[in-house]
């Protein structure tokens, strides 16, 4: 009961701030849309490049990337909020008022998921309005959104671990940069087979590459490496959960 109360309280406060404060809400909605419109619209001729073999067209190809990117950054932005709370003293208030402090991390996590759900719904509506072709069935689509949700949780746990260790907004680049690099060292604009040189070599070992490939496959109804992608994502959740919990212990030790 105590744990549930803490989770609900922390999540409620975060979401209330998001929904009632346009300066928080709008960037998290507009940036993914901007990316999507810029990539899918501006680079649509990429689908005519020889070797581009994605069957559902460039809009759908880009939609999956932007969906996963919004998921990852939605998690990271919640990490920013944690850092801001600790820097301003509100984190200490939560630590003091919460009999069970694990609930604080989980509450922020729930808020990150809800934030992403709002973004994902809007993004999907806009993509469909842009004529995105969907080849996958309901199960494929549920799997696609579940994969994105797991990535959202990974992004959140990673940044929460940093935020609770450093407890200042100066940690923001540290939270953001590795996620940014991982995302953009993957086959973002063209399939892996069309990447060359160092980028191809790096992308082959990047876990985001597998998530992107599986996500695009699920949207097209022709998914490959589903087990591997979900397995990698879940391993990351476990690793980052330990990372975030140790971050919480670090914040507790620092007072």
């Amino acid at each position, binding site marked *: 009961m105590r744990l549930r109360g803490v989770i609900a309280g922390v999540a409620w406060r975060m979401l209330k701030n998001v929904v009632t404060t346009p300066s928080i809400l709008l960037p998290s909605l507009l940036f993914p849309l901007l990316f999507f419109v810029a990539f899918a619209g501006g680079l649509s001729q990429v689908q005519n490049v020889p070797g581009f073999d994605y069957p559902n067209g460039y809009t759908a190809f880009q939609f999956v990337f932007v969906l996963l990117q919004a998921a990852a950054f939605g998690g990271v932005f919640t990490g920013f909020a944690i850092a801001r709370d600790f820097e301003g003293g*509100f984190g200490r208030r939560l630590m003091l008022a919460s009999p069970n402090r694990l609930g604080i991390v989980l509450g922020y996590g729930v808020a990150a998921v809800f934030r992403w759900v709002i973004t994902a719904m809007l993004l999907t509506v806009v993509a469909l309005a842009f004529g995105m072709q969907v080849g996958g069935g309901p199960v494929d689509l549920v799997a696609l959104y579940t994969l994105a949700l797991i990535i959202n949780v990974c992004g959140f746990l990673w940044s929460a671990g940093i935020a609770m260790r450093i407890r200042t907004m100066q940690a923001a680049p540290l939270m953001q940069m590795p996620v940014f690099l991982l995302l953009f060292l993957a086959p973002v604009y063209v399939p892996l087979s069309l990447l060359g040189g160092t980028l191809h070599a790096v992308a082959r070992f990047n876990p985001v590459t597998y998530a992107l490939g599986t996500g695009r496959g699920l949207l097209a109804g022709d998914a490959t490496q589903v087990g591997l992608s979900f397995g990698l994502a879940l391993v990351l959740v476990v690793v980052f959960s330990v990372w975030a919990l140790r971050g919480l212990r670090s914040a507790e030790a620092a007072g």
Partner: protein
Amino acid sequence: MARDNSIVVEKLVREFRKGPRAVDGIDLHVAPGEIYGFLGPNGAGKSTTVLMLTTLLPATTGSARVGGYDIRTEGPKVRSVIGAALQEAALDPLLTGRDHLKLQTMLQAVPKAERKPRQNELLDRVGLTEAADRKVRGYSGGMKRRLDLALALVHRPSILFLDEPTTGLDPQSRTALWEEVARLAREDNVTVFLTTQYLEEADVLADRVGIIDNGRIVAEGTPAALKAEIGRPSIHVTPVRDDDRSVITELLGRFGEPLGSERDLAVRLREGSGLVDVIRAMDADGVVVDDIELRAPTLDDVFLAKTGRTLEGAAAEKTVAPSVR
């Protein structure tokens, strides 16, 4: 069974990395329903003690039980029986006063049916009913402090920690807060651990006072007992002219030990000496003064007697040479 709402501290130490011992082996016992004033200058170790007792900061060594629970091993239970208003009322500027109370009732698992009535009751008690639906960023310092106190009381804690609760408040708000704290102890039997650097606050509110300096408790007792320990009153003289200072100092020296007061010339009277004796001596020597005052011992005198400095002077020292903390 009645809840144990005492605080028992034994040899509590907090050492910061590469820093001094902020708290250096303190022992104290606060009885249920007692208001304990923890008095000391900035940097003396008051807030560090509060942070440890409220489980926000681990102790380096030593032990403490708050409400019967061990602060090291039973943190969640400690937090469920205490309320705390820390030095800076850290509030979310985007939330309203009522939102803060709602959040606090959720965190403290107040039953749903009781949440709204409890919020309204507390808003009324701290005089924030009208401002309840305004965002906190528009609140004055006094309003923030009052909201902070209301938040600390949401779950009806049996022990309340107040870390310099009236710093920066206007006299009216300060008096109102004192009244509320006294009421909590008197009517609700809440144990109050109050840190302050205001002598008057400790004197008016506290049943017992602990004086901390450089991480150590240098004196402890009821304000009356501590002052009685010092015993003798002091005489404070303001000369008419600066040239008279040495004459007056010499004259006063016949009746007691000089005090390190910067504003006036002062002595702590020896046994058997009184104001009348001093005035007669002045008459006899033809000394004219602007003002002469007999003062009963204060907690500042206690602080001076125990540490060799006035509380004001100690605070200034810390300001000039801040500690590593």
